[in-house]
């Protein structure tokens, strides 16, 4: 994905040795310098190719997004004083969000959710599954792969019912299985429920990505390590992990961003009980759509976006250090 850019930039900026090294992995960096328009497309035609997509994205994505950000500066509500006269409150919404204890709790819960279910949960489980599946026998591999993929591709509305059936207080499968009666999982352990739910729902992506990544580890390197007497763990640590570091960062970035903006826990706990699992997207929904405080909700959206931006920049920095380190 996007992470290819550091490599090509390196190819252009660094000396010939670095460019040659980059060329062994990617044909892009160096060739681009010879011919900026290899296909003979021409700038006008290239623009014509990009224009339709750009138009649609501008109208239906950029424009509403900017509108949302602008609403964050207004005292804009569906009911009450804010509905009659729009007043420009500048950073007022941001100040009240940043001083609101509910926002603090929500931000904290979001961080717990993202780290628990994505950065640790999906990432580690996804990698272990990919590692295990690459050497498992065919039956085990197909069964596990299909189950993991099903959890990922089933429609959200269906999945919501499946988890209701799993966790239901009186008739739930989990209570039947554990012999616990009248255990209300959703009420008693809401954060655990949504973290485990998201691991179940989203691990497939990491499995797919890491499976592809593991095929890029040269077999000969593993064989050399094995002949030198390295254990599985040592092979993993010294050969595999360094090779796929870029994939790990890309994967972590994507699943982090997706999990930050994930609204699906609403289908399980609705943010409750009493806000105990109210992560930011649900908090925004409750403020903006249910409560009608559109300006305030938009302001929190921007704060969420800024958090995402910081994370993205952090990951991209890490990637850049890596490719620089390799090519130096």
């Amino acid at each position, binding site marked *: *994905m*996007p*992470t*290819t850019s550091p490599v090509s930039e390196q190819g252009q900026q660094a000396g010939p040795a670095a460019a040659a090294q980059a060329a062994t992995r990617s044909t*892009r960096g160096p060739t*681009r310098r010879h*011919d900026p328009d*290899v*296909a*003979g*497309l021409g*700038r006008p*035609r290239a*623009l014509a190719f990009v224009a*339709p*997509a750009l138009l*649609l*994205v501008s109208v*239906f*994505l950029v424009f*509403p*997004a900017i*509108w*949302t950000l602008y609403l964050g500066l207004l005292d804009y509500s569906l009911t009450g004083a804010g509905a009659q006269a729009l007043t420009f409150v500048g950073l007022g919404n941001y100040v009240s969000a940043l001083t609101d204890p509910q926002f603090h709790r929500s931000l904290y819960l979001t961080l717990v959710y993202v780290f628990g279910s994505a950065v640790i949960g999906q990432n580690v489980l996804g990698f272990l*599954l990919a590692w295990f599946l690459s050497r498992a026998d065919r039956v085990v591999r197909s069964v596990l792969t299909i189950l993991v993929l*099903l*959890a990922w591709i*089933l*429609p*959200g*509305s*269906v*999945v919501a*019912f*499946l988890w*209701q*059936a*799993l966790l239901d207080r*009186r*008739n739930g*499968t*989990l209570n*039947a299985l554990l012999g616990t009666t009248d255990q209300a999982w959703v009420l008693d352990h809401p954060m655990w429920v949504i973290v485990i739910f998201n691991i*179940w729902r989203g691990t497939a992506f990491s499995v797919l*990505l890491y499976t*592809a*990544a593991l*095929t890029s580890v040269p077999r000969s390197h593993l064989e050399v390590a094995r002949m030198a007497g390295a254990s599985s763990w040592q092979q993993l640590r010294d050969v595999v992990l360094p090779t796929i570091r870029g*994939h790990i*960062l890309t994967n972590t970035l994507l699943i982090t961003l997706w999990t*930050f*903006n994930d609204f699906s826990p609403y289908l399980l706990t609705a943010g409750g009980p009493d806000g105990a699992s109210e992560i930011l997207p649900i908090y925004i929904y409750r403020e*903006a*759509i249910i409560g009608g405080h559109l300006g305030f909700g*938009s302001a929190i*959206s921007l704060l*969420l*976006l800024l958090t*995402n931006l910081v994370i993205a920049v952090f990951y991209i920095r890490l990637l850049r250090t*890596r490719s620089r380190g390799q090519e130096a």
Partner: protein
Amino acid sequence: MTPVVRSVVAKIATYVAVCLLVVFFALPLLWLAITPFTPQPTYRVSLSGFTLDNFAQLGDNPQVWPSIRNSLVLAGGSALVVIALASLAAYALSRVQVPGRDQLLYALLLLSSIVTGTAAMVPIFLMLFQLGLIDRQVGVVLVLTGGLLPAAIFILKDFVDSIPRSYEESARVFGASASQILRHIVLPVIRPGMATVGVWALVQVWGNFLIPYVLLADPRKQPAAVVMYTFYDAGGQPDFALISTFALVYSVPVVVLYLVVNRRYGFAFQGGIKG
């Protein structure tokens, strides 16, 4: 521990872990596999008896088949638009230098996460109202497409990037025109990428609840994801016979499609996402 004992222990630990994982991933799915065939279905998964009577409910409810058709229209329409526009854009962005291209794509990706979120729903609603696109499926397709395009361009651009430039260079040496290069060289090579993006878009739209829910008021135009939440009886209790069979029918197309394309092209990210 001797090496033999250790390897036996490791084997057993692996088996236990695999069994636990199978149970973890399969357990929630049991309800979908069993309940549609149970007499008097509830949340309880039970193996008491086997019946196909529940499926008769599907014929009785007038919303069932139109909603599936609506889902097909929305998902198919969005997937086609996404494939067409994203391929063109990805090809041009990959092959012709534009300053600030990567930053632009990153910015769009980040924005796409708030537009699919709940806060942007109000601006989107107001805008479509002004455009006269409320309660029209084309409006839903356009909004969803706008949200999906950045990621689609991203994924496809990596597919195009992985085509060696020498292919096009040699074709040009032999006098091929730009459109011949497109049709005979680029298109065949990125077809798996287009399939990947198409199925990805289809799955996203097929399962999307929020946008059609907000933008379509007429029940006859609503897709399966929205209609599924209307299957409650007069007392407010979920109609499990209808919900379970409908859930199965609604899930099957997307699963089959995924498996077919997966078998045909493989969903490896080769040349795709790399570090």
